[in-house]
């Protein structure tokens, strides 16, 4: 491609001549017209289908002014929904972080039979509809189930209570951390840990001082995605929650109730919080990809 420029003696006159000529188009790219059309198509499509819904959330929320907006957010039921969402995420995300790290350790640091199958099983919740993710717990703990009567006689509430919501959220966000860490730790291999152990470190020390610093950005990336999904999950939680206002309503469920009551400003006001979370997630995610791209395996595979 650059042959002509390199081999011709570059004199001032030649350069001037080259600049005044109509620019030469490489054979491996499209013409300016096609280029402009493609960029316009891509940007137009993204603006219409992706950006417009995001912008609409904020505009609808402030439709009746800032006062209404804050009023809607101050409602006791809304505050309860925010608190429940934070509680559920605070339980579900750490559980899946512990699972993700242990699963990645077992899968990435050792060679054993059935590894590929185990990895497929870990990804399973991604291919299950959110509604079915909730349904499985209704079938497991519900009135007609094997466990249902026993739970009832012991006064343990799982369905239509917080434990059910946590379980459904754990199910839905199950693969996030693990699938981020497994390829990353596989890429990193076992050399560092073997060196640490041959120098006398215990297994824990090798993990704490060698592995964890190696995977911290990948781990943060997985936590970020896991948390966004945990706080925003709707279908699975909707099935197991029972929709009791102020008690078992998470933010997405509260949005649904407000919307169905035609309380649009309040519904969109609560939505702005989740949309804000989504924006923060995207910014942090892009930053991590940009700054620590090498330390986040599979960053582009989502």
């Amino acid at each position, binding site marked *: 491609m650059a042959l002509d420029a390199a081999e011709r003696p570059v004199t001032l006159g030649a350069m001037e001549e080259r600049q005044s000529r109509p620019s030469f188009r490489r054979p491996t790219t499209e013409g300016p017209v096609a280029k402009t059309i493609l960029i316009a198509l891509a940007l137009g499509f993204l603006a219409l289908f992706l950006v417009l819904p995001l912008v609409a959330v904020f505009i609808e929320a402030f439709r009746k002014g800032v006062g209404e907006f804050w009023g809607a957010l101050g409602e006791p039921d809304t505050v309860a929904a925010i608190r429940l969402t934070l509680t559920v995420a605070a339980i579900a995300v750490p559980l899946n972080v512990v699972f993700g790290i242990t699963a990645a350790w077992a899968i990435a640091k050792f060679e054993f039979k059935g590894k590929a199958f185990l990895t497929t099983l870990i990804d399973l919740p991604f291919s299950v509809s959110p509604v079915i993710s909730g*349904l499985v717990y209704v079938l497991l703990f519900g009135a007609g189930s094997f466990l249902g009567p026993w739970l009832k006689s012991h006064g343990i509430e799982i369905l239509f209570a917080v434990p059910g919501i946590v379980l459904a959220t754990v199910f839905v966000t199950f693969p996030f951390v693990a699938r981020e860490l497994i390829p990353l730790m596989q890429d990193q291999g076992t050399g560092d840990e073997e060196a640490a152990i041959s120098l006398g470190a215990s297994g824990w020390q090798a993990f704490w001082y060698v592995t964890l610093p190696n995977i911290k950005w990948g781990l943060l990336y997985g936590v970020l995605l896991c948390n966004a999904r945990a706080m925003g999950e709707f279908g699975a939680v909707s099935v197991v929650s029972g929709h009791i206002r102020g008690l078992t309503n998470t933010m997405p469920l509260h949005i649904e109730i407000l919307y169905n009551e035609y309380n649009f400003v309040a519904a969109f006001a609560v939505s702005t919080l989740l949309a804000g979370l989504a924006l923060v997630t995207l910014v942090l995610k892009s930053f991590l990809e940009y700054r620590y791209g090498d330390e986040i395996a599979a960053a582009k595979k989502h």
Partner: protein
Amino acid sequence: MTTLAAASGWRFRRPSVIPGFGLTLGFTIAYLTLIVLIPLSGVAWRSSELGWPEFWALATDPRTVNALKISFGTSLIAALVNVVFGTIVAWVLVRYSFPGRRLVDAVVDLPFALPTAVAGISLAAIYAPNGWVGRWLGMVGIKAAFTPLGIVIALIFIGLPFVVRTVQPVMEEIDKEVEEAAATLGANRFQTIRSVILPGLAPALLTGFALALARAVGEYGSVIFIAGNIPYVSEIAPLLIVIRLEEFNYAGATAIAAIMLVISFLMLFLINLIQAWSRRRYGYGA
């Protein structure tokens, strides 16, 4: 020692000095079994309890059949639209430089980050007859919200990143020399794209299509607000599961769930096949 172990034949795992295999694998399998495998097997268990005739009756119930048809039909259309525009978006992001390219790249992931319920009410507001876009569509006689078209719009939103993020890394790996060779052999740009670039992208496009389709079929939150949920017209299968559960018709809900699970596992299997084929044929695993 290695020779001794090798002589012993079949081995579950290769020896290693790194500790913690038993603990981590044990915990992984226990947690996976408790959280995912036991609950999921409940669907199979409950379906088998129904017995074949009753299961068949529930599965062929006209409302169920219609809901499944609507779910798959709209998902198929949305996935096709996403393959076309997802490829264009990926191409523009990989090949062209323009101001704000990095921002546009980040925006593609928005559907992963924005909760489905938020997307749902927002799309419903935009495409409602008095909404920003719905108003204009109404002028040309198109009704988007509360019709199957609305479902397609929501599913396009949900599925786009799957196509872009599957195709984009493969596009980045395309060797420019192949295009130069095509050009020196006299192919014009269109011929190069059609006969040289697109065939190489085919496995990635197929995988992206299957991923978007699989996600769309199960989607619930972003669809129900814009769909209108009219039985036989715009009622999707996941919603029918919720309706059956609210009626305490667990058998009906389980039957639909079982059908959907079988189909999504088949699709998962298909995606794995495409990737294995792609690795053999093109040397990358889409």
